[in-house]
Protein backbone atom coordinates (compact mmCIF):
# COMPACT_ATOMS: atom_id res chain seq x y z
CA UNK A 1 0.00 0.00 0.00
CA UNK A 2 2.75 2.38 0.95
CA UNK A 3 4.50 1.60 -2.29
CA UNK A 4 1.42 2.44 -4.32
CA UNK A 5 1.13 5.78 -2.54
CA UNK A 6 4.73 6.52 -3.27
CA UNK A 7 4.41 5.78 -7.00
CA UNK A 8 1.18 7.76 -7.16
CA UNK A 9 2.65 10.82 -5.51
CA UNK A 10 5.77 10.56 -7.63
CA UNK A 11 3.83 10.53 -10.88
CA UNK A 12 1.76 13.47 -9.62
CA UNK A 13 4.94 15.46 -9.10
CA UNK A 14 6.17 14.58 -12.58
CA UNK A 15 2.85 15.66 -14.07
CA UNK A 16 2.75 18.97 -12.24
CA UNK A 17 6.31 20.20 -12.41
CA UNK A 18 7.30 20.43 -16.04
CA UNK A 19 10.91 21.21 -16.49
CA UNK A 20 12.98 23.31 -18.85
CA UNK A 21 15.70 21.51 -20.80
CA UNK A 22 19.33 22.44 -19.95
CA UNK A 23 19.80 25.34 -22.41
CA UNK A 24 16.43 26.84 -21.43
CA UNK A 25 17.26 26.46 -17.72
CA UNK A 26 20.54 28.29 -18.36
CA UNK A 27 18.55 31.07 -20.03
CA UNK A 28 16.17 31.22 -17.03
CA UNK A 29 19.18 31.50 -14.70
CA UNK A 30 20.51 34.39 -16.79
CA UNK A 31 17.14 36.13 -16.58
CA UNK A 32 17.08 35.60 -12.80
CA UNK A 33 20.53 37.12 -12.45
CA UNK A 34 19.50 40.13 -14.52
CA UNK A 35 16.27 40.54 -12.54
CA UNK A 36 18.27 40.51 -9.31
CA UNK A 37 20.65 43.19 -10.63
CA UNK A 38 17.70 45.37 -11.59
CA UNK A 39 15.94 44.89 -8.26
CA UNK A 40 17.82 43.56 -5.21
CA UNK A 41 14.61 42.38 -3.53
CA UNK A 42 13.95 39.88 -6.37
CA UNK A 43 13.60 36.33 -5.02
CA UNK A 44 12.14 34.05 -7.66
CA UNK A 45 9.95 34.02 -10.76
CA UNK A 46 6.26 33.66 -10.16
CA UNK A 47 3.69 31.90 -12.36
CA UNK A 48 0.81 33.99 -10.96
CA UNK A 49 2.50 37.23 -12.00
CA UNK A 50 3.27 35.56 -15.34
CA UNK A 51 -0.39 34.74 -15.86
CA UNK A 52 -1.31 38.42 -15.35
CA UNK A 53 1.34 39.45 -17.89
CA UNK A 54 -0.15 36.97 -20.33
CA UNK A 55 -3.83 37.77 -19.89
CA UNK A 56 -3.93 41.53 -19.19
CA UNK A 57 -4.72 44.03 -21.94
CA UNK A 58 -2.37 46.78 -23.09
CA UNK A 59 -2.22 49.37 -25.83
CA UNK A 60 0.04 47.65 -28.36
CA UNK A 61 2.23 48.61 -31.27
CA UNK A 62 -0.76 49.37 -33.47
CA UNK A 63 -2.38 51.61 -30.84
CA UNK A 64 -5.07 49.02 -30.14
CA UNK A 65 -5.84 47.23 -26.89
CA UNK A 66 -4.61 43.66 -26.94
CA UNK A 67 -3.18 40.85 -24.84
CA UNK A 68 -1.01 37.79 -25.40
CA UNK A 69 -4.30 35.89 -25.39
CA UNK A 70 -5.47 37.86 -28.47
CA UNK A 71 -3.50 35.35 -30.54
CA UNK A 72 -2.79 32.43 -28.19
CA UNK A 73 -6.28 32.45 -26.52
CA UNK A 74 -6.85 31.62 -22.83
CA UNK A 75 -6.73 27.87 -23.40
CA UNK A 76 -3.08 27.26 -24.18
CA UNK A 77 -3.64 23.58 -24.82
CA UNK A 78 -5.62 24.51 -27.90
CA UNK A 79 -4.58 26.18 -31.13
CA UNK A 80 -4.73 29.94 -31.38
CA UNK A 81 -5.12 32.25 -34.34
CA UNK A 82 -2.96 35.21 -35.38
CA UNK A 83 -5.24 38.22 -35.07
CA UNK A 84 -3.41 40.02 -37.89
CA UNK A 85 -3.56 37.25 -40.47
CA UNK A 86 -5.95 34.58 -39.07
CA UNK A 87 -3.24 31.95 -39.49
CA UNK A 88 -3.55 29.09 -37.01
CA UNK A 89 -0.95 29.00 -34.20
CA UNK A 90 -0.15 25.59 -32.70
CA UNK A 91 -0.78 25.28 -28.92
CA UNK A 92 1.67 27.14 -26.68
CA UNK A 93 1.35 24.73 -23.72
CA UNK A 94 4.33 22.35 -23.55
CA UNK A 95 1.94 19.63 -22.27
CA UNK A 96 0.10 19.81 -25.61
CA UNK A 97 3.05 20.69 -27.83
CA UNK A 98 6.40 19.13 -26.90
CA UNK A 99 8.43 21.48 -29.10
CA UNK A 100 7.45 24.56 -27.08
CA UNK A 101 9.99 26.32 -24.86
CA UNK A 102 12.80 24.02 -25.95
CA UNK A 103 14.82 26.35 -28.20
CA UNK A 104 16.32 29.46 -26.56
CA UNK A 105 16.79 31.44 -29.80
CA UNK A 106 13.19 30.77 -30.82
CA UNK A 107 11.85 31.79 -27.40
CA UNK A 108 13.95 34.97 -27.30
CA UNK A 109 12.87 35.95 -30.81
CA UNK A 110 9.16 35.53 -30.15
CA UNK A 111 9.25 37.19 -26.74
CA UNK A 112 10.98 40.22 -28.30
CA UNK A 113 8.41 40.43 -31.10
CA UNK A 114 5.35 39.60 -29.04
CA UNK A 115 6.17 42.00 -26.17
CA UNK A 116 6.68 44.75 -28.76
CA UNK A 117 3.30 43.94 -30.32
CA UNK A 118 1.36 43.83 -27.04
CA UNK A 119 3.27 46.17 -24.68
CA UNK A 120 4.84 48.39 -27.34
CA UNK A 121 8.22 47.79 -25.67
CA UNK A 122 10.48 44.83 -24.89
CA UNK A 123 9.80 42.77 -21.78
CA UNK A 124 12.03 43.12 -18.71
CA UNK A 125 14.02 40.15 -17.38
CA UNK A 126 11.46 39.84 -14.56
CA UNK A 127 8.50 39.85 -16.96
CA UNK A 128 10.08 37.32 -19.31
CA UNK A 129 11.04 35.00 -16.44
CA UNK A 130 7.57 35.24 -14.90
CA UNK A 131 5.74 34.58 -18.15
CA UNK A 132 7.97 31.60 -19.04
CA UNK A 133 7.39 30.18 -15.54
CA UNK A 134 3.65 30.49 -16.15
CA UNK A 135 3.92 28.91 -19.62
CA UNK A 136 6.11 25.94 -18.67
CA UNK A 137 3.42 24.79 -16.24
CA UNK A 138 0.70 24.80 -18.88
Amino acid sequence: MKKIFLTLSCSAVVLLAQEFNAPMQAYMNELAKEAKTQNASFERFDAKRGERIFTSKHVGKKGQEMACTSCHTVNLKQSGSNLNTNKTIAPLAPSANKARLTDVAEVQKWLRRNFNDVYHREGSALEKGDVLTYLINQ
Partner: protein
Amino acid sequence: MRRIILGCVILVSMTWAKSVPVANDALYQKECASCHFGYQPALLNASGWQKVMGNLQDHFGTDASLSQKEHDAILTYVTQNAGNSKLTQGNTTMRISQSPYFIKEHRRIPERLIDQPEVKSLSQCAACHTKAEQGDYSERNIVIPNYGRWE
Protein backbone atom coordinates in the same frame (compact mmCIF):
# COMPACT_ATOMS: atom_id res chain seq x y z
CA MET B 1 20.85 36.07 -85.15
CA ARG B 2 22.15 37.47 -81.85
CA ARG B 3 19.25 39.88 -81.77
CA ILE B 4 16.68 37.16 -82.27
CA ILE B 5 18.14 35.11 -79.42
CA LEU B 6 18.17 38.17 -77.19
CA GLY B 7 14.58 38.91 -78.13
CA CYS B 8 13.58 35.37 -77.22
CA VAL B 9 15.34 35.51 -73.86
CA ILE B 10 13.52 38.71 -72.93
CA LEU B 11 10.25 37.26 -74.11
CA VAL B 12 10.73 34.16 -71.96
CA SER B 13 11.68 36.08 -68.83
CA MET B 14 8.66 38.37 -69.15
CA THR B 15 6.08 35.65 -69.80
CA TRP B 16 3.53 35.07 -67.15
CA ALA B 17 2.51 31.43 -66.87
CA LYS B 18 0.16 32.00 -63.88
CA SER B 19 2.63 30.11 -61.77
CA VAL B 20 5.89 30.83 -59.96
CA PRO B 21 8.69 28.57 -58.61
CA VAL B 22 7.94 27.20 -55.10
CA ALA B 23 9.59 28.81 -52.08
CA ASN B 24 11.75 25.82 -51.21
CA ASP B 25 14.25 27.50 -48.90
CA ALA B 26 14.02 25.99 -45.39
CA LEU B 27 15.09 29.15 -43.53
CA TYR B 28 12.63 31.24 -45.53
CA GLN B 29 9.81 28.83 -44.73
CA LYS B 30 10.69 28.83 -41.03
CA GLU B 31 10.99 32.61 -40.67
CA CYS B 32 8.64 34.03 -43.27
CA ALA B 33 5.76 31.56 -43.20
CA SER B 34 5.11 31.61 -39.44
CA CYS B 35 2.55 34.43 -39.48
CA HIS B 36 1.21 34.02 -43.00
CA PHE B 37 1.50 32.05 -46.20
CA GLY B 38 5.13 31.97 -47.45
CA TYR B 39 5.00 34.32 -50.45
CA GLN B 40 7.17 33.04 -53.31
CA PRO B 41 10.06 35.44 -54.07
CA ALA B 42 8.91 35.75 -57.71
CA LEU B 43 5.69 37.50 -56.56
CA LEU B 44 7.59 40.73 -55.83
CA ASN B 45 10.39 42.59 -57.57
CA ALA B 46 13.84 43.05 -56.01
CA SER B 47 13.28 46.62 -54.88
CA GLY B 48 10.06 45.57 -53.16
CA TRP B 49 11.91 42.83 -51.27
CA GLN B 50 14.59 45.29 -50.25
CA LYS B 51 11.90 47.52 -48.75
CA VAL B 52 10.27 44.60 -46.92
CA MET B 53 13.57 43.37 -45.49
CA GLY B 54 14.66 46.90 -44.57
CA ASN B 55 12.04 47.34 -41.86
CA LEU B 56 11.06 44.05 -40.23
CA GLN B 57 10.76 45.70 -36.79
CA ASP B 58 7.70 47.50 -38.08
CA HIS B 59 6.35 45.01 -40.57
CA PHE B 60 2.79 46.04 -41.49
CA GLY B 61 2.11 46.95 -37.85
CA THR B 62 3.75 43.90 -36.29
CA ASP B 63 7.31 43.10 -35.14
CA ALA B 64 8.89 40.48 -37.43
CA SER B 65 12.52 41.30 -36.58
CA LEU B 66 15.28 38.76 -37.21
CA SER B 67 18.88 38.39 -36.12
CA GLN B 68 21.40 39.86 -38.59
CA LYS B 69 22.54 36.45 -39.86
CA GLU B 70 19.04 35.22 -40.73
CA HIS B 71 18.11 38.62 -42.13
CA ASP B 72 21.07 38.63 -44.54
CA ALA B 73 20.52 35.06 -45.72
CA ILE B 74 16.84 35.71 -46.44
CA LEU B 75 17.53 39.04 -48.16
CA THR B 76 19.92 37.23 -50.53
CA TYR B 77 17.40 34.46 -51.18
CA VAL B 78 14.46 36.75 -51.98
CA THR B 79 16.37 39.25 -54.10
CA GLN B 80 18.14 36.54 -56.10
CA ASN B 81 14.81 34.90 -56.85
CA ALA B 82 12.79 38.10 -57.17
CA GLY B 83 10.15 38.39 -59.87
CA ASN B 84 10.31 40.03 -63.26
CA SER B 85 6.92 39.46 -64.87
CA LYS B 86 3.58 41.07 -65.64
CA LEU B 87 2.71 40.61 -61.97
CA THR B 88 5.68 42.56 -60.61
CA GLN B 89 5.94 45.24 -63.28
CA GLY B 90 5.38 48.81 -62.17
CA ASN B 91 5.09 47.81 -58.51
CA THR B 92 6.86 50.48 -56.46
CA THR B 93 5.45 49.29 -53.11
CA MET B 94 6.42 46.50 -50.74
CA ARG B 95 3.11 44.74 -51.18
CA ILE B 96 2.47 42.05 -53.78
CA SER B 97 -1.20 42.98 -53.43
CA GLN B 98 -0.47 46.56 -54.61
CA SER B 99 1.02 45.68 -57.98
CA PRO B 100 -1.01 47.15 -60.87
CA TYR B 101 -1.60 43.72 -62.41
CA PHE B 102 -2.66 42.25 -59.05
CA ILE B 103 -5.15 45.07 -58.45
CA LYS B 104 -6.58 44.66 -61.93
CA GLU B 105 -6.98 40.87 -61.50
CA HIS B 106 -8.68 41.12 -58.10
CA ARG B 107 -10.88 44.20 -58.53
CA ARG B 108 -14.01 42.22 -59.39
CA ILE B 109 -14.06 40.21 -56.14
CA PRO B 110 -16.82 41.51 -53.85
CA GLU B 111 -15.60 43.11 -50.60
CA ARG B 112 -17.67 40.74 -48.42
CA LEU B 113 -15.80 37.72 -49.80
CA ILE B 114 -12.49 39.31 -48.79
CA ASP B 115 -13.50 40.73 -45.38
CA GLN B 116 -14.83 37.40 -44.08
CA PRO B 117 -12.86 35.61 -41.32
CA GLU B 118 -11.93 32.68 -43.61
CA VAL B 119 -9.98 35.09 -45.85
CA LYS B 120 -9.29 38.25 -43.80
CA SER B 121 -7.48 40.19 -46.55
CA LEU B 122 -6.17 39.86 -50.09
CA SER B 123 -2.74 39.18 -48.54
CA GLN B 124 -3.90 35.67 -47.56
CA CYS B 125 -3.32 34.14 -51.01
CA ALA B 126 -3.79 30.53 -49.91
CA ALA B 127 -7.32 31.21 -48.63
CA CYS B 128 -8.54 31.32 -52.25
CA HIS B 129 -5.71 29.97 -54.38
CA THR B 130 -5.86 26.33 -53.29
CA LYS B 131 -2.51 25.51 -54.91
CA ALA B 132 -0.72 28.70 -53.81
CA GLU B 133 1.78 26.62 -51.84
CA GLN B 134 2.85 25.03 -55.15
CA GLY B 135 3.10 28.46 -56.79
CA ASP B 136 0.02 27.83 -58.94
CA TYR B 137 -2.30 30.87 -59.31
CA SER B 138 -4.31 29.71 -62.32
CA GLU B 139 -8.09 30.30 -62.39
CA ARG B 140 -8.90 26.62 -62.32
CA ASN B 141 -7.52 26.28 -58.78
CA ILE B 142 -9.36 29.21 -57.21
CA VAL B 143 -12.02 28.40 -54.63
CA ILE B 144 -13.29 31.34 -52.55
CA PRO B 145 -14.65 30.34 -49.10
CA ASN B 146 -18.46 30.61 -48.88
CA TYR B 147 -18.61 31.24 -52.61
CA GLY B 148 -16.96 28.34 -54.44
CA ARG B 149 -15.12 28.06 -57.70
CA TRP B 150 -14.43 31.31 -59.48
CA GLU B 151 -14.14 30.00 -63.03
